[in-house]
């Protein structure tokens, strides 16, 4: 009874301080909006306008037609003309272009010969995405197809000369829009960032300002202090979910196929799990700057290993095991399931349970680490 009263006292105090701290309050609203806009627009896998250099030594009607067709896809945008393949290479080296299209003098003759490539694409493979995109473009059915030219243009794709064997059917995101793939996970990334950041400084700040020395001489218990500190952030987390979700639906046309209630329940589970991690960091860090560093220490693997960017199933086993300890891994499954596939929580009990387990573990560790002492 007294315990609950004390916990609420801490929560109320935290609420008041938060409402008064303009900077933090601006971050509560600002960070999600800025990040969702950045992620939604900038992490764009629908790559367009790759800078291309053209060396058309053939100069025939067919070769000009090929260039025009490639340009029409809007994936490449010719920005440079070159005379030779060497010149294209120099342009690649100088980052003037990222794709070079080389059409040899005997282009027409090569087109007739099924054993030789008719033209060459030079691709800057230092960017992980560009080669795949370009080869996809090269495989597109251009008007030249009747000549059987395009399949043979790309020397090293290793694909069948007969064209693609499989037809691909894309589920849930048939247009292949990257906003639909990226934005739901972004909710999780943003929450990790803001929630962990806010709570990780929560106890460190009291220590730095000297409040803790007084607080721990009172009868308040560790668990009351910890829970009281995270309660306001649960509300803030759900507020942020609403903000990001509105942006996702209205700005990026992300579908909401499941129910809103399921989504909020999943978000709640996720928010408390990351808050637990934030508190744990707060009990480890000595000063706010360390809390900051540790927050990024958690954020980076979350972004890389959770399946947010790279497919989870494609990761090596050890990485997959490690990723189980990251709340974002489970939230990605939940949020993509609910938003995009229209799944219900009943279908997603496992990731929900795992979030619960992570919350219990992180809170317990935080409590074990937190001593009502200064040494």
């Amino acid at each position, binding site marked *: 009874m007294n315990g609950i009263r004390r916990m609420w006292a801490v929560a109320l105090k935290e609420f008041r301080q938060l409402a008064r701290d303009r900077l933090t309050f601006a971050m509560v609203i600002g960070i999600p909006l800025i990040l969702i806009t950045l992620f939604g627009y900038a992490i764009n896998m629908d790559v367009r306008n790759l800078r291309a250099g053209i060396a058309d030594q053939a100069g025939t009607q067919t070769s000009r037609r090929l260039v025009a067709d490639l340009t029409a896809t809007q994936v490449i945008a010719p920005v440079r003309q070159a005379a030779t393949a060497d010149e294209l290479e120099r342009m690649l080296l100088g980052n003037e272009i990222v794709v070079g299209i080389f059409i040899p003098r005997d282009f027409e003759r090569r087109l007739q010969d099924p054993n030789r490539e008719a033209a060459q694409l030079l691709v800057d493979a230092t960017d992980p995405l560009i080669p795949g995109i370009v080869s996809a473009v090269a495989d597109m059915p251009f008007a030249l197809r009747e000549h059987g030219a395009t399949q043979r243009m790309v020397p090293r794709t290793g694909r069948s000369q007969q064209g693609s064997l499989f037809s691909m059917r894309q589920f849930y995101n048939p247009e292949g829009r990257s906003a639909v793939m990226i934005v739901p996970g972004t909710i999780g990334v943003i929450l990790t960032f803001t929630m962990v950041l806010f709570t990780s400084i929560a106890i460190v700040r009291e220590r730095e300002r000297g409040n803790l020395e*007084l607080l721990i001489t009172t009868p308040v218990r560790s668990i009351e202090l910890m829970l009281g500190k995270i309660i306001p952030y649960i509300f803030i987390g759900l507020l942020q979910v609403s903000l990001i979700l509105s942006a996702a639906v209205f700005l990026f046309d992300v579908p909401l196929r499941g129910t809103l209630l399921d989504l909020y329940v999943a978000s709640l589970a996720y928010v408390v799990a990351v808050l637990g991690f934030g508190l744990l960091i707060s009990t480890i860090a000595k000063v706010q700057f360390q809390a900051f560093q540790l927050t990024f220490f958690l954020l980076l693997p979350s972004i890389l290993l959770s399946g947010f960017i790279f497919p989870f199933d494609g990761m090596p086993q050890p990485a997959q095991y490690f990723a189980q300890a990251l709340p974002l891994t489970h939230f990605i499954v939940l949020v993509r399931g609910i938003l995009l596939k229209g799944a219900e929580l009943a279908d997603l009990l496992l990731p929900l349970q795992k979030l619960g387990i992570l919350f219990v573990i992180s809170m317990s560790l935080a409590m074990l680490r937190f001593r*009502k*002492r200064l040494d």
Partner: protein
Amino acid sequence: MGASAAIVTQNLSRRFGAVLAVDDLHLQVPEAQIYGFLGPNGSGKSTTFRMLCGLLKPTAGEVDVLGHRLPGDAERIRSLIGYMTQQFSLYRDLTVLENLQFMAQIQGLSRRERRDRVRHSLRAYRLERYRKRRAEHLSGGERQRLALAAALLHRPPLLLLDEPTSAVDPQTRRDFWDALFELINQGTTILVSTHYMDEAERCHRLAILDRGGLVAEGEPLELIGNIDATVIEITGADLKSLRETLSGLRGVWNLTQLGSRLHALLDPGTDRPVERVQGALANAGLQANVSIAEAGLEDVFVAATGKRPS
């Protein structure tokens, strides 16, 4: 010491790495009295307070506070002590009223008690006018009254005040001490650290600390009476030369200028001190009046903590 002891420490020590912050402290703090800790910065006052609150674990020794052994029983004494930290440690971004309400809730007071006591302390510590003001916008004295009011909300029988008056003017200090004597009348035991002599003189008992160790302990008058030094007063025209001459003299521990007088602390073993000083000054061709003077607490402090020639 008639009354029973609120705090007893034995062999209490605390080490921070190479620094021995508190060195083998034996203390008995009687109930319902004001017990002072007098010592320069770094003498271990705050560290001792923190060990008495259970905030720091002693490196060695034993602590008994109100019948509870520390640090094991630390949670038991939480509601029995009021602690005013050296630095203001309430929330600067909360108002006076919010701070008091928060502390009342944290202390687990009922709704009624909270309302009554917060109202009472606003009145008793003249904070009513500032109830809506944030703590960061209070003056030093107001902030200190707020901290004291907050430390007393749960009516603790033991109050620990760590340099409570270091940032306030003399009048505010006097008012503050009047408030402390009120509390003593109600049976509260108060432990207060200070480096002001006038405050130290007002304590019932006093412990003088230096570099972590206890160098003197007792009632102020007792300490003055038992001073381990001879105090000499010198007046003359050329104080600067007098001072230079005396500072080289063997057996002179310390020289302090008080306006147009010189105050000298001499080794108590000095034979016929007045004559000795007069002789030394005459040898240097200096004119001066030399007499035995009454010691003050400051002299006790200097004698106990000042550097003695080996």
